[in-house]
Every structure is written in structure tokens, then in C-alpha cells.
């Protein structure tokens, strides 16, 4: 007997537990298998690029916090680097070290969030998620101590950082750096060898190397395919050329590799922070830059290796106090180009896992 079947369309999102915000996927399903997928963006569009054109250069920094809101520090840094390139500002040594420490801590905390929500997507009932949040809390405490807020830090300034660290920061940071590797190993034990976790992620959602480059993927998504491309190494900004660290890469480019690259990157970040702690000099933390800075006419592209990938700011100046144009290169938006290739043919459950392995933030995609 031949049963008549027909594909149906399921709108996943914009309100759905696993869409990491307000993302919507129009999925055509055959039973449980995904036949077609169309991502729909824009539910969190706030027009950041347009808003940036009406604010002074320093006033854009709080806006960049709100792009990838789990990685505000690196967003700050990318924007600030672009403006500094444009205005040719020299940043004091201590500020550079603080920037590196902050962005590496931010990377750890963002990766903790991504791994946590990824395990949640794969069905662990909130346990690893909350473990990750517990560790993140220790880092967020440090950020809170330095800049007074827990999510939207607004710490980097054009020509340095907003203020020097308090006295109790470095001892607390040393404690955190000493404490975290053990915990990371523990979570490694919890997940990386779990047979069910492996079954759900190994070989699922493979992104081939060539496709990864072609779609402009960056960050852990690109590195999981085996390409050693990390802007901290390949185009060292700030003072990253002074530190010794490795670029963890995957082999297959599947969900498990993306997860595992993130896990290893946290270890590397701790290494960088440890080195920075040894080298950090004293001195001023901010160059003498006026509050309303007027960079010369021109354009500059500043980019950093954010937790999700290459965060770039293309700032065009017309000599005024506000950027003439400020384009944001959102890594998650580029990475999502590969979502179709990776998820077609897999089941709905895999779709959620694949989507979770990108660790996207909608604030960054919709802007």
C-alpha cells in the first residue's frame, strides 16, 4: 500500500525556545526531515548603523555593546580600533593590556554561554547551562568591578579604556584564572565523551572547508573545518603579537568540532590572560583624546576576533563629530549563510542542534 505523504511548512520562531532570540526559520518538513529552510531576519532590527550616524564617535560605543550582547567588550574593541586607525591615535601600553585581558575574559564568558545554550539545545535539561553560567558569573563579577555593569560594559574608549582597574581587580583575576581551568576540565568530562552527546553532534551539520570560506564564515565555525584562521594571529591587532597561544582547529566541521573548538579556545584565552597578567605595566590608561573627537576625512576598517567570529567596523569619516557611515560586519550573519547547506536533510532535532552550534546572537544579526 502506498501512503500519500506531503511536505508541510513549519514556522520555527520568532518565538521559540531555541532560536536564541527572535530568529525565524521557515522550514519545509517531510515528516521530521528538513527539506528546505529559509531564514527570516529582522525581528530585532534597531537600525544601529543609522543611529551611529547621528551620535558622536564616543557615543557609538554604548551602541556597539548592544550588538552581540554576550560579547560587548570585543564589539567595543572593534569599533574603537577602527576609529583609532582613522584618527591615528596611539594607545598607552597599560590600556592595551587591559583591552587584551578584557577581550579574552569576554571570549571565555561568551564561549561559556554558547556551550551552555548549545547543550540546552541538544537536550540537557539546563544543568550544563547553569554550570556555565556559574563560571561566567565569576568573570562578569570582574567586569562589574571594572566598569560598573554586568552586561553592557561600555569600557573601551577611543584612545584607551574608560578608567583604570581598581586595586582588588588583579588579585581577583588571578584567583579566577587559577580556578577556571579545573572547571573547564570538569565540563569537558561532563560532555565531550558523553555517548549521547557525541551521537547527537558528531557528523551532524558538516560544513565543508571550501563552503566555509566561500560563505565568509569566521570564528569557531570556520576553525572547526580545519582552517587555521584567527585574526589574533593572522592580523594581530592591539598587542596580540606578544602572546603565545595556539589556534585550536577541528577536523570535520561538524557540530561537535564547533563545540570542541570553543572549549579549547577558552583554555587558550586563559593562557593569554595569564601572560598578560605577568607583563602588565603601570601607567596611564587613556590617551589624551578630546571627548568630541573629529577624525580626518577617510575611512578605516577595524576588526577583531570576537567569540562568534570576525567583528568588523567600517567607519567612514567626513571630518565631523559623528561617523559619516559606520558599517558593522556581523560574524553571525555570515555564518548563518551556511545554515541551509548544513541542515537540509537532517531532522528537526538536528536542525536545532546545528543552529545552536553557531552560537548566534540576534542583536548582532539584525542590528
Amino acid at each position: 500500500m502506498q501512503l500519500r505523504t506531503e511536505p508541510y511548512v513549519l514556522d520555527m520562531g520568532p518565538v521559540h525556545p531555541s532560536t536564541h532570540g527572535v530568529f525565524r526559520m521557515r522550514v519545509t518538513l517531510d515528516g521530521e526531515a528538513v527539506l528546505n529552510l529559509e531564514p527570516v531576519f529582522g525581528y530585532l532590527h534597531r537600525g544601529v548603523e543609522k543611529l551611529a550616524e547621528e551620535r558622536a564617535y564616543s557615543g557609538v560605543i554604548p551602541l556597539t555593546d548592544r550588538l552581540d550582547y554576550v560579547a560587548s567588550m570585543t564589539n567595543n574593541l572593534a569599533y574603537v580600533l577602527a576609529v583609532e586607525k582613522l584618527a591615528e591615535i596611539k594607545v598607552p601600553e597599560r590600556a592595551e593590556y587591559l583591552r587584551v585581558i578584557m577581550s579574552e575574559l569576554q571570549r571565555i564568558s561568551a564561549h561559556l554561554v554558547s556551550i551552555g545554550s548549545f547543550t540546552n539545545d541538544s537536550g540537557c535539561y539546563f544543568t550544563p547551562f547553569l554550570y556555565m553560567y556559574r563560571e561566567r558569573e565569576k568573570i562578569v563579577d570582574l567586569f562589574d568591578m571594572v566598569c560598573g555593569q554586568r552586561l553592557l560594559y561600555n569600557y573601551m574608549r577611543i584612545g584607551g579604556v574608560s578608567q583604570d582597574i581598581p586595586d582588588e581587580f588583579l588579585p581577583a583575576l588571578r584567583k579566577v584564572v587559577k580556578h577556571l581551568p579545573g572547571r573547564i576540565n570538569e565540563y569537558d568530562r561532563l560532555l565531550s565523551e558523553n555517548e549521547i552527546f557525541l551521537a547527537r553532534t558528531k557528523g551532524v551539520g558538516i560544513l565543508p572547508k571550501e563552503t566555509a570560506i566561500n560563505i565568509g564564515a569566521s570564528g569557531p565555525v570556520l576553525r572547526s573545518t580545519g582552517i587555521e584562521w584567527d585574526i589574533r594571529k593572522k592580523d594581530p591587532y592591539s598587542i596580540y603579537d606578544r602572546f603565545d597561544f595556539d589556534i585550536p582547529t577541528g577536523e570535520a566541521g561538524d557540530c561537535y568540532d564547533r563545540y570542541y573548538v570553543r572549549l579549547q579556545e577558552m583554555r587558550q584565552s586563559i593562557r593569554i590572560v595569564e601572560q598578560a597578567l605577568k607583563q602588565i605595566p603601570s601607567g596611564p590608561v587613556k590617551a589624551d583624546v578630546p571627548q568630541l573627537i573629529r577624525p580626518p576625512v577617510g575611512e578605516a576598517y577595524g576588526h577583531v576576533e570576537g567569540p562568534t567570529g570576525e567583528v568588523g567596523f567600517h567607519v567612514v569619516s567626513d571630518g565631523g563629530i559623528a561617523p559619516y557611515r559606520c558599517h558593522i560586519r556581523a560574524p553571525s550573519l555570515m555564518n548563518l549563510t551556511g545554515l541551509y547547506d548544513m541542515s537540509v536533510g537532517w531532522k528537526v532535532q538536528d536542525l536545532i542542534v546545528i543552529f545552536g552550534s553557531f552560537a548566534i546572537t540576534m542583536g548582532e544579526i539584525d542590528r
Partner: protein
Amino acid sequence: MKFERYGRGIAKGMVVTMINLLRPRVVTQYPEQKLTISQRTRGNELVWDKDKCTGCGTCSKTCPQGVIRIETSVGDENKYFVESFEVDTGYCISCGLCVEACPYDALFMGYAYELGRYRRGDLVLTRDEMASEERIRSGYNRPEVAETLPRQTLLIEREGD
């Protein structure tokens, strides 16, 4: 799923969760238990020092949201007199740029954080509210104030290792 290692991975994971079951909990019961917040907290209840302020309006110019409204008139001895000074905290993004910009250290971020209001109009802070003595000043960008505030509770110190 291939049990190449006979489910050892699952067993390891179970041990990890059991260890965490026995660890002390880090959650605080909020309204009863409160942690000390950072000395540099950027609460958006701005605190204003009436005596130091010269009415230059730098804060208003720097505010990315444009929510600081300041009106001045020339008073005696050729000084500005601040007639009205309003901050609509409903639009404030607590970025702290106004405090950093203030050349006379007359503006402070607030140390308070329980700022819910029933009416939107109540969110607009007026001149007198901001100058009120009851408000605690935060140490954001004001190291001398930060020293007077209690030390922040850190999870790393509470949990130890």
C-alpha cells in the same frame, strides 16, 4: 550512537553532576539576601552636586541618547544658574558618558538599583531629586567616592575552590 567505550562517557558525566550536587549552591535568595554591588555601579539614578555644577552643559552634549535637558540663565557674579536639570531615565542607557565628560566632577552615577516605577512620568528625574542628599553616589569614574563604598561581593571568593 556507538558505545565504543561501553558508556563510560555517560558514567563520567553522571559523576560530574553528582559532584556538583554536593557542592555548595551559589544562588542567593534575592529580596532577603543581597550581594554588595560593585563600587562603580552604573545605576541610572544620577546624582548631581549642585555646588560644583557650573551649568556648562557638557553632560548634555555627550549624552548619546540626548536625555539630559539643562537650562541655565546668567545669575549673579556672571555665573550660570541652573534653572532646570532633567534626566529622563526611561531613555537613559546607563552608559556613564555624562559622568566621564563632566569637567567639574559634579555628576555621579547612582549606587541604587531597585528603580522600578509605576508611572512612566516618575522616571524623569528633576533637579531637586538628583541633588537630594539621600542618594548614594557611585564610584564610577570617581575613585575618591569608590573608596568610601563597601567592597563588592565576588562569587570567586564566596565559592572558593
